[in-house]
């Protein structure tokens, strides 16, 4: 795998990489903002989840929740704004996916 690392990515790889990274950054920011005001334990009590026993677990679950949320929103946006190709090779030759 590492023997071929620097080849330029396909459009799909680019999309997945950008999606994952941008949603990661926003998730990190929102996790910070959210948990600055909300103690995970308060949330755990309110939702009556007994399986979460440490604050760290709460932070991690919160982070992944934000990450997945951003990822899905971004992916749907990409799907919905993509333009149909008109005629052979119009404007974006391989941007159909």
């Amino acid at each position, binding site marked *: 795998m*590492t023997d071929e*690392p*620097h*080849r330029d990515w396909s459009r799909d790889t680019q999309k997945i990489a*950008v999606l994952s990274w941008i949603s990661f950054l926003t998730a990190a920011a929102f996790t910070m903002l959210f*948990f600055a*005001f909300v*103690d995970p334990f308060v949330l755990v009590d309110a939702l009556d989840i007994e399986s979460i026993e*440490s604050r760290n677990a709460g932070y991690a679950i919160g982070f992944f929740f934000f990450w997945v949320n951003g990822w899905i929103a971004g992916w749907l946006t990409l799907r919905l704004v993509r333009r149909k190709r008109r005629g052979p*090779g119009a404007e974006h030759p391989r941007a159909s996916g």
Partner: protein
Amino acid sequence: MNEKTADEAYGYLYRSEDKIYPREVKGRFATLRRLAMFLLLGIFYGGPWLTWEGRQAILFDLPARKFYIFGLTLWPQDFIYLALLLIVAAISLFFFTALAGRLWCGFACPQTVWTEAFTWIERAIEGDRGKRIKLDKAPWTASKLAKKTAKQFFWISLSLFTGYTFVGYFTAIHTLTAEILSLSVGPWEGFWILFYGFATYGNAGFMREQVCKYMCPYARFQSSMFDSDTLIITYDTERGEPRGGRRREADPRKLGLGDCIDCTMCVQVCPTGIDIRKGLQYECIACAACIDACDQVMDKVQYPRGLIRYATENALQKKGYHLLRPRTLVYSAILATLAAVLISSLAIREPVILDVIRDRNTLYRDVGRRGIENGYTLRIVNKENEAHDYTLSVAGIEGIALESKSEFSVDAESVFTLPISVTAPHEYAIGGQKIEFRLESADGSGIAIVEESRFRGPTT
């Protein structure tokens, strides 16, 4: 559709480029970059080991919801300072971009710094550019396997060590080390070590310049902070063109050539594989490797240095350099204001927080001769490193009084919850009125804080 035809017809847009094997470069900027790498990695790896008054100097203690930064202890309520700090950092980035282009990308970005470290390991094991190209093309032999295994071993070790150090900023590093040595790391700590180790490996060993080209938001937006007076790495087209090979003793002017001997060294050293001679491109991370390479070549052929150099667009067109311009003035004004706000608000930060929460279940109670009673819950957060004795008083209505104890002690760095009731005489406790709780230190430490709330009584 035939991909090849599309590629030919639409040029570089979707063309797959070959693997980039950046050639090692020596020179002023390479030394500077190496120094920056050692300094920044030193700060990162050494950071968790610093101590301050017997505890870890920089510790973001998430389980306890307290951040320790040297002498400062930040609580979740102090989030505003963290937010301000991040905004100051962002504006600084804009400011330095306007001044000197992508200095951040070339020298300080973690992506660059770790890629530099990973490339350094790669080079030490597999050799320089030519050797690496040859090694990758060669069939799998014992020696190739040994080299690749060694490289992966050091890469993975460095990645895991990075993950461990990162988690060490959140879990006290001495505790974490003891846990690792006794193989009793908590599940979340173990997970984050692997997660950040994997991210480091992926970003610095595997993705490298693709992160800058496709994934980095700053790379896409930085051009909007540029103007004609921003320092950029640029090729002096006027001096260099027309480029071409020539014999050493030949006079380029007689041959009708510029100073560029078209040795392509600038392209070979580029970590993002671009040709700087085609002008400023968004892939350029301003690492200045091409400047070093070109200077060396210019020295060899005895032409003056600086065919590729740091310059501004205006300087290249001989229009001079303007440091003070609206963009830099605005950025520096915002920066100075925010920094002043941050420092002064930190300086006058209250060492104690008083929250008053009104009992929502009953508006008020008639307690006969004693008057009208309201219930409250007080939350006192002592942010200081020592315990304090406090006196509580209430004011705002004639004859208002505390029915519960008014003197108590709050331990260092802890939260004290106190349910209290307050009474006021019938004749004055009419409708909703503003009252004030006043908390004062009783031990001479000079702390005094006032918090408003409402007192309710019958409307008639």
